[in-house]
């Protein structure tokens, strides 16, 4: 009896130990950047390393938001965040509008080319983004959209639409056709039935697709870095990249402050929509 108890106990210790190791590996880097952002400049270079700052300070946050100068260049972090909000917001609106329209058509109408068109759409997600940087740069420049936020919004929308359409089609399919038909029989037009009956039922799904796209646009670096030149209109990922280049290790607390403020909105969205993210991701990558 005693032996079995000991064995059970040691098993549970080993299991929890493994779990804690996984937890540390996952979370430590994130905690570390938050801790570093609260350090004063001279504490960054303390040897041995200080795992907890003696005097936690939000100095670095003030420096990137308010005073904000570095060798004659304004830092404008709040501006970068607002630009990101604008780009991600508008492109999320576009993909939701167009994507849910297309998704509705694919899920409700048996028109010619239905299946093939949807397959083509989802195939575009296999393309490596970096391989399209050159032609997209050329095209955006030709249209005179280089160095504008609108060019970037267009690119994000184009890359987001296939998945959004695909997922919206799935959500609309899950709304029983009979409900919609009943509304039409009751004298609703097709469009009215869509707006007042079907959309509210598919709403949560559609919002989570929007959240997914928003997070993706908020994070995107490569296209933002080539399509935007003027400092004032840069987005947060590019701004953070600049900070890393400007400050390097010597002011990592500022890089950390920028990283933390940029991560907060995403973490909040993620906490609310986590379940949908996994499901959306599955549907988007694994063809059913």
């Amino acid at each position, binding site marked *: 009896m005693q032996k079995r108890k000991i064995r059970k106990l040691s098993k549970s210790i080993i299991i*929890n130990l*493994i*779990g804690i190791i*996984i*937890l540390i590996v*996952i979370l430590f*880097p*994130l905690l570390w*950047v938050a801790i570093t952002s609260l350090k004063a400049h001279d504490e*960054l*270079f303390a*040897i*041995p*390393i200080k795992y907890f700052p003696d005097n936690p300070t939000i100095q670095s946050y003030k420096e990137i938001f308010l005073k904000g100068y570095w060798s004659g260049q304004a830092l404008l972090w709040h501006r970068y965040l607002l630009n990101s909000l604008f780009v991600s917001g508008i492109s999320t609106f576009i993909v939701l*509008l*167009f*994507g849910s*329209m*297309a998704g509705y*058509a*694919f899920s*409700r*109408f048996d*028109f010619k080319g239905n299946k093939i068109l949807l397959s083509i*759409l989802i195939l575009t997600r296999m*393309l*490596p983004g*970096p*391989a*399209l*940087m*050159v*032609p*997209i*740069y*050329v*095209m955006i420049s030709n249209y005179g959209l280089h160095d504008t936020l609108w060019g970037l919004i267009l690119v994000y929308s*184009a890359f987001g*639409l296939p998945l959004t*359409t695909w997922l919206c089609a799935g959500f609309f399919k899950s709304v029983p056709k009979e409900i919609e038909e009943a509304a039409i029989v009751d004298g609703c037009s097709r469009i009215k039935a869509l707006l007042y009956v079907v959309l509210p039922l598919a709403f949560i799904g559609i919002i989570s697709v929007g959240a997914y796209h928003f997070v993706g646009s908020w*994070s995107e*670096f*490569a296209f933002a*870095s080539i399509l935007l030149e003027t400092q004032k209109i840069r987005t947060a*990922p590019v701004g*953070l*990249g600049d900070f*890393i280049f400007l400050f390097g*290790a010597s002011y990592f607390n500022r*890089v950390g402050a920028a*990283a933390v403020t*940029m*991560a907060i909105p*995403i*973490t909040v969205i*993620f906490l609310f929509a*986590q379940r949908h*993210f*996994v499901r959306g991701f599955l549907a988007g*990558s694994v063809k059913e």
Partner: protein
Amino acid sequence: MGKRLKLPYIFILPTFIVVTVLIAYPIFDVIRLSFTDLFLLRPGTGKFVGLRTYAKTLSDPVFPLVLRNTIVWMALATILSIGFGLGVGYYLSFDWKINKVLRAVILLPWILPPVISASIWQWMMHSEFGVINDILVRLRFLEDGIAWLGEPKLALSALILVMVWKNVPMLAILLSAAFQSVPAELLEASTIDGATEWQKFRFISLPSISYTLLILMVIVSIWNIQQFVIIWITTRGGPINSTHIFPTYIYEMAFTNFRFGQAAALSVITIGILMIISVLYLILFRKEARS
């Protein structure tokens, strides 16, 4: 009747216009550009030169290095991600208390912008003030700190570990769901027959999820060959080109050197590699489906 038939086409029209203009057309344009000598700093370039741009790109002494790096990056990052993903996913598939906590936070590395992950790891791997060296020296694994990202021999391996850290959470979540769908009766029967935990994993759980595993390998390979930010932010392909893979090399060729023709040729080669991988996996799928 006619109106009803047109409605679906009107509904999908905006999506198809945007996708055609911004994704489908660029695929053809990148092929066209790869046959030109477009060099943004020299006016008058951009004419058709046949295969000369490809010849120039392939004979560049850096090209074999980039090809080698890309293969190493793809192979190692994929194998390690899947390996750790299997382990963590199997762990997560059990009904333990600690797994509630783990599940709640594990996806954070995956969801965070890669530019943030890159900045964190660059700071943690700093040769003098980095926390990784500090821990390793304290635990007496090392005598002195190492410049993880400064050594040409080490940098790519260090970045592969960052990529694995980013990939594993999503894989673990998906694989744990797959493990949980393994029929409980099978596992119980094997317990009665006296199977050890390892035998249960190896001969029952693992074979039951082989299809999911193959799909995930395709997906992870695609994640890996598309990765640009983690490398570009931390090392810009250096030191001495030791961490350049195709995406970073394309970016540098186009937007640092402004040699658009060559960058387009590299893009076409990248798409080609991706297609070869997809075909390889398709063949594997077929075999899997038959057996």
